[in-house]
């Protein structure tokens, strides 16, 4: 009787495992690691440029557009086709034409995404796509390079610090195709 009970429990478990979502996790090499995202304001909405780290620490960029900020990441996921790993995003760039309500909405949206790290840095630049396309001094992904620059400069622009303090002053990077540079003064968003 006891053997029958154990056998039936085992069969149930095996049968249920076969038709379940237990094996729907993704391995580490099957995800796209996002090191930085940049959101530019476009004429008819927003453009998101994501820096993706691929094999051998190489980087590639992926862009999507959307009408509203909260549709950008779902569109990015659709375009990528492969699961995205946002939880290692080092820096979030916004363009200098963001206003305070855009910033508040962006913060609210990023906080509602469980996977998004609240300790990633927020920075302003003239054009996010230009910055992320810039050649740069090192082979390190720009999201992490900018993170190091901001840590060394002791500017705390972490998402939750900005959100908590309601501050509208952010570090500002000038970007060209060849380089990006942290300015001494902070950018004020109004």
């Amino acid at each position: 009787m006891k053997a029958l009970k154990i056998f039936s429990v085992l069969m149930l478990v095996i049968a249920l495992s076969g038709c379940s979502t237990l094996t729907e996790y993704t391995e580490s090499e099957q995800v796209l690691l996002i090191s930085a995202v940049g959101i530019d304001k476009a004429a008819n909405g927003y453009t998101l440029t994501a820096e993706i780290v691929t094999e051998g620490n190489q980087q590639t960029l992926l862009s999507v557009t959307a009408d509203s900020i909260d549709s950008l990441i779902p569109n990015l996921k659709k375009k990528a086709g492969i699961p995205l790993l946002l939880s290692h995003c080092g820096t979030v760039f916004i363009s200098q034409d963001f206003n305070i309500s855009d910033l508040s909405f962006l913060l609210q949206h990023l906080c509602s995404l469980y996977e998004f790290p609240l300790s990633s840095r927020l920075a302003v630049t003239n054009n996010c796509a230009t910055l992320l396309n810039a050649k740069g001094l090192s082979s390190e992904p720009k999201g992490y390079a900018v993170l190091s620059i901001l840590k060394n400069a002791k500017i705390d622009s972490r998402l939750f610090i900005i959100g908590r303090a309601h501050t509208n002053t952010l570090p500002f990077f000038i970007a060209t195709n060849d380089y990006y540079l942290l300015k001494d003064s902070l950018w004020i968003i109004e």
Partner: protein
Amino acid sequence: MDNRINNFLPRIALISLFFIGNTVINLPFSQGITASLVGFAAAFIISTPLIIAFARYNPSGNTFSVILFCLYALFCGIVTLRNYVTFSDKIILPEISSFFPTLLFLALLWLICREKQSVLLKLSLIFCALVLTLIILLFFFSLDNMSLKALIPKTAVSLKDSLYQGVSYFGMSIAQSIVIAGLFKSNKKEMLSGYIIASLFLLICLLQSLATFGYTLITQLNYPYSAAMSVISFGDKFSRMEGFSYLLYFSCTLIKSAVCIISAKNTLTLRFPKVKKYFLPLVLGIYAIVSIFTKVFTNLPFLQVAPFMIIPPFVLIALKKKN
């Protein structure tokens, strides 16, 4: 040469974990957040005499009291389980459905609830030491992220918000402690010690969450304490400590659910001994169905659930006094 647990420490550990329970997952409650500290303090102070009454409560009595006590204990257990499963579904294991983690949790409950009480007490001792150490250590690591200014509310604290916060804390944690009476006869000192320790550590969690995020940002987060752990960084390489929050929540909710089930089982089987053999499989089966196939408690506003959490303990105490 005796195998009994002769020490009060495991019982205090169990009581502390029961109080911390699923409250730590949801703390602070999002409505009326600016009054969270005031509500917490008020609930703590006002409930102290009630804790003493709960410590003296004996669940044996007439059949109605016994059944009400059992149903209440099982209800508290299912709410706890459901809170943890929801957290697990959203944060810990978002890729897989909640079916299997729930089954695993129930299997663990079955393993613990069929053994003697000493197993639960020893588990509580180990988990309590772990939980309290984690809370303290992570609080100290989090000091850099915290700001005292964030604790000062920008708007005035209203009575309604304070009441909401106090009632929420009372319903989620304090009122449910009557369930412990079905497990063992705890004395006043043990109950009060466990209550004070748990409240102190819940306060630490609350302060850490509020001081890290402030009142405005925290309303945008679903699990603020877990989020507060995620922003802790230790040196260059080590950050995202929310893994410890998974351990913390797991320990507290497991112990609380086990206490609820064992308490209901002990009380019901004293009155109806024949039920003993079927109780555990039946209850765990019902828990599985309710957890997996219904969305009960996930989206309900707290005020709709609160009467079921708050009223029964008072009814039980009143019935006891009448008898």
